[in-house]
């Protein structure tokens, strides 16, 4: 394991410096090739016929006319691809093309490969399909109320996909200790990634029986497995090349039907086959934020200490499983990472509905519960007459501790984050003191730096790096990681350059190609910097050892005195004595033969030993605090956010300018979710998406974007490479609740759901003016039968991380 090894912070030459990204030049000149930029001779084009009903049985499917249409090479139907797949092994409930039944508008039904896109599109009209309509389920409540017909034949029962109940310590005993108890019901609407790039893939099948797929995936390794399975090919006959992703945000993590379809078409036609989805199709592929209804019951002392929390969530999963089981866990497991919670009960339900499937979007499953928790903290502080910043500050999870649900916390910089934004925003002078219509609000968050377990069980590394040193002095890094814009290719170069004392631009980075690069699990769960970084440190340290041996013998300088810096290897005490890096490589190659090393990384085992303990643990947790400033127009309900102050505990930044870029991008996405972004469907019109387009799906433009004052808090975590923790997802989480809390400060109304649109604000303001509760949000949390909890004694109670038989409840 790499760990926070390497030099002291002051000695760092590359790490912590604002280097350009290794791909910056190609990105600003239009040279970077994205999937849709690829063209091959004899390439065919694919279009997909999609369901026009939200739920139905396929009575008739006749593609004969399309098959004989001039220019059409092949029409693919569900029966051609009978093997099911899905992102998680526990819910492999998808087929590339519907078999017998469609479950949502836009479900793929048939695919046409033709000489060009126009012909393929024309041929779609010739496919004859008839459906028998089945009742469609449009909401959480409808899914709970309508057990039949079932959308899927698996799951808990009816249209309940998944139920989970965990209790860490006796939560009723915790409530008994509380001075006050409050329960708040909140709703977080679904939203989508809206990556700028339209999903595209190209497949080629060689006469050697090998398939190559170029595609904009965030997780080539998982896709590789799914492809081989569905296509019935050995994995070593399948090669996935993840092209540079034009934005991901979680939207390119699932294996997609269109990726499998073009692969199959390439196998059957013997020609390269391409597809590029339209923007509308992408809205139906979705896999974005789950709409989540939440009930958070919290017991607390007069000083704000939390004695117990019972947190319940119901997720609207859409039509398929996808990553949904993991999302379900994430609507509760990270709650205890910020403030001490003595006892914690977490119940979650995921239902199926006939809408685009939900899955991982930036923050995967955690922005929703964080919103619930952080607006409740604001209410608790208000109820107790405490300053919400100070109250939070007082009850932080201590560093190097175990949370109530057995997550191991390393460094914990949330206190410093709070201090920074409180000071920067002049919080004390402004909170509850601004004129009506203006307000500020605070919220905090914690997030993981990489999931502790892979999505299929195995004991192998999560990330591997191979290094090749050649006589030119050039170093090539091979790694399966995928750059989705966050800069993961550059991180590899910076880290190897730091260890070997060369320039990052001396290094070539080869990534995301399952034939050429060792496995990295993918760009999800904020895992890449930490895991590939540690693997890269190990590989580079091993290479360095070889160079050290060769140089030390040659120069007669003890190994521990050799310094690698400025493309030289020299005697620390007598810098004149040394040689260039290239010369060192020559020497080592002469001594050892061709130079290459490997490194790998696997997180430590999770402390929790109960069933389900694998979701939540992470090598390190990042922390963020944000203060949002708002202006609310009480006449129109329009909310403007001029500024957000945000501090992020990053451990150690590998490159500050990229870290700040991740924070600003996170604030942007949080702002969009807070105020405008929503995936909504027309229940009365066959559940078509209300606005599957860039124009009508509202997202912040340059005009809505707020100013961002960012602070990087560096408190190196021993599990991170050079101490680094994540920055790509965590900073989004405090933004929506900070805005909601600021709106309360501005106009005295609580908006307990996002997006906080003007109509909701106005309704709450008007209700308040009439003497009613100044609140907008859900008021009931529906009932769902739940199984008995998995009961786990807390670390404080001396538990060992295992579940036990339920102790008798206090009388």
């Amino acid at each position, binding site marked *: 394991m790499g760990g926070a090894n390497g030099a002291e912070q002051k000695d760092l030459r590359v790490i912590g410096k604002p280097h350009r990204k290794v791909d910056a030049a*190609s*990105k600003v000149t239009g040279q970077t090739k994205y999937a849709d930029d690829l063209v091959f001779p004899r390439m065919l084009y694919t279009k997909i016929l999609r369901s026009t009903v939200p739920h139905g049985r396929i009575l008739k499917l006749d593609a004969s006319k399309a098959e004989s*249409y001039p220019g059409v090479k092949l029409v693919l139907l569900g029966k051609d691809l009978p093997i099911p797949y899905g992102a998680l092994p526990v819910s492999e409930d998808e087929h590339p093309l519907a078999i017998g039944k469609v479950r949502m508008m836009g479900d793929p039904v048939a695919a046409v490969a033709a000489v060009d896109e126009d012909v393929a599109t024309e041929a779609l*009209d010739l496919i004859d399909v008839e459906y028998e309509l089945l009742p469609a389920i449009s909401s959480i409540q409808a899914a709970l109320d309508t057990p039949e017909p079932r959308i899927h034949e698996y799951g808990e029962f009816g249209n309940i996909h998944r139920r989970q109940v965990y209790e860490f310590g006796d939560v009723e005993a915790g409530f008994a200790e509380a001075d006050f108890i409050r329960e708040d019901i909140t709703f977080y609407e679904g939203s989508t990634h*809206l990556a700028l790039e339209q999903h595209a893939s190209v497949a080629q099948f060689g006469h050697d029986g090998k398939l190559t797929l170029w595609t904009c995936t965030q997780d080539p390794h998982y896709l590789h497995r799914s492809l081989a399975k569905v296509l019935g090919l050995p994995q070593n006959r399948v090669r996935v090349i993840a092209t540079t*992703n034009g*934005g991901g945000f979680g939207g390119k993590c699932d294996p997609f039907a269109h990726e499998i379809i073009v692969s199959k078409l390439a196998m059957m036609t013997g020609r390269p086959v391409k597809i590029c989805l339209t*923007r509308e199709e992408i809205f139906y592929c979705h896999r974005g934020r789950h709409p989540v209804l939440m009930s958070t019951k919290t017991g607390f002392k007069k000083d704000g200490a939390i004695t117990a929390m019972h947190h319940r969530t119901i997720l609207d999963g859409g039509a398929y499983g996808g990553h949904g089981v993991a999302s379900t866990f994430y609507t509760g497991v990270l709650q205890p990472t910020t403030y001490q919670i003595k006892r914690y009960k977490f119940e979650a339900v995921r239902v199926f509905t006939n809408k685009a499937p939900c899955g991982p979007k930036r923050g995967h499953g955690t922005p929703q519960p964080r919103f619930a928790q952080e607006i409740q903290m604001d209410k608790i502080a208000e109820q107790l007459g405490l300053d919400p910043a100070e109250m939070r500050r007082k009850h932080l999870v201590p560093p190097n501790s175990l949370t109530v649900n057995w997550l191991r916390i390393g460094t914990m910089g949330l206190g410093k984050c709070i201090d920074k934004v409180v000071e920067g925003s002049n919080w004390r002078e402004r909170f509850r003191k601004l004129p009506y219509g203006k307000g500020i609000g605070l919220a905090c968050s914690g997030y993981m730096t990489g999931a502790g377990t892979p999505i299929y069980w195995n004991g192998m590394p999560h990330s591997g790096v191979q290094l090749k040193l050649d006589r030119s002095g050039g170093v090539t890094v091979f790694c399966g990681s995928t750059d989705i814009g966050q800069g993961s290719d550059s991180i590899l170069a910076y880290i190897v350059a730091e260890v070997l004392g060369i320039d990052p631009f001396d290094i070539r980075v080869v990534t995301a190609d399952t034939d050429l690069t060792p496995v990295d699990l993918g760009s999800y769960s904020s895992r890449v910097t930490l895991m590939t970084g540690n693997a890269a440190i190990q590989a580079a340290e091993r290479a360095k050892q070889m160079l050290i041996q060769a140089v030390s013998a040659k120069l007669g300088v003890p190994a521990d005195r050799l310094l690698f810096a400025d493309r030289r290897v020299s005697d620390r005490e007598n810098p004149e004595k040394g040689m260039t890096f290239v010369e060192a490589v020559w020497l080592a190659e002469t001594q050892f033969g061709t130079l290459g090393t490997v490194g790998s990384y696997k997180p430590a085992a999770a402390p929790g030993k109960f069933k389900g303990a694998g979701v939540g643990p992470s090598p390190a947790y990042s922390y963020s605090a944000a203060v949002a400033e708002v202006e609310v127009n009480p006449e129109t309900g329009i909310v403007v956010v001029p500024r957000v102050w945000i501090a992020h505990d990053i451990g150690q930044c590998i490159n500050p300018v990229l870290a700040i870029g991740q924070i600003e*991008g996170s604030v942007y996405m949080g702002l969009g979710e807070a105020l405008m972004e929503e995936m909504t469907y027309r229940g009365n019109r066959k559940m078509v998406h209300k606005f599957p387009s860039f124009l009508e799906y509202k997202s912040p433009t340059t005009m809505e974007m707020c100013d961002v004052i*960012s602070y990087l808090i560096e408190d190196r975590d021993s599990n991170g490479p050079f101490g680094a923790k994540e920055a790509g997802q965590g900073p989004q989480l405090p933004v929506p609740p900070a805005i909601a809390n600021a709106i309360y400060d501005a106009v005295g109304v609580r908006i307990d759901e996002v997006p906080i649109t003007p109509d909701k604000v106005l309704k709450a303001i008007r209700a308040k003016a009439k003497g009613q509760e100044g609140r907008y949000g859900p008021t009931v949390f529906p009932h769902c039968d739940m199984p008995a909890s998995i009961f786990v004694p807390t670390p404080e109670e001396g538990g060992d991380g295992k579940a036990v038989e339920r102790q008798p409840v206090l009388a």
Partner: protein
Amino acid sequence: MKPTKKRNNRKPEKAQVCLRVNGEPVEVAFAPHKTLLEVLREDLALTGTKHGCELGECGCCAVLVDGRPVLSCLVLAVTLEGHEVVTVEGMAEGAKLHPLQEAFAELGAAQCGYCTPGFLLTAKVLLEETPQPSRERIKKALAGNICRCTGYIKIFQAVELAAARMAGKPAEPSKESIYGWR
């Protein structure tokens, strides 16, 4: 789109257009319904121009026609006989990047890079018309370009940096834009 009945008899009539692209004369033949976006990407292999919607909603596909930014997905290429088109491939002068390209690279204003060509070209025109634009002016000029990665801030800062340098000032990015506030 409705199927054409007698596909076999359809003679694909191609339009022939002469225009200048990135300073060079180009003669290109293509199906007349094709947009400038399609002709650039498919017939001229200039894939630097991107598309996010193909409906004129995202700004990704912006190129310059006679020096004005246009959404290439909304322009029929047949209308461009004799016109001058500049794409991102034509921004650098030889090996020398345009100051906007330098500034975008320096500040990490291209994260995934997909929106970047559209922003660069739109900003280029802005700086030609308003060499020292205010932040507000920059926001207005770029309001039709969506970026999902950066939150726009690094883009604003990059435009400001390039503007200063183009005015001959030896400008450097502010400390805060790189290291955050202290």
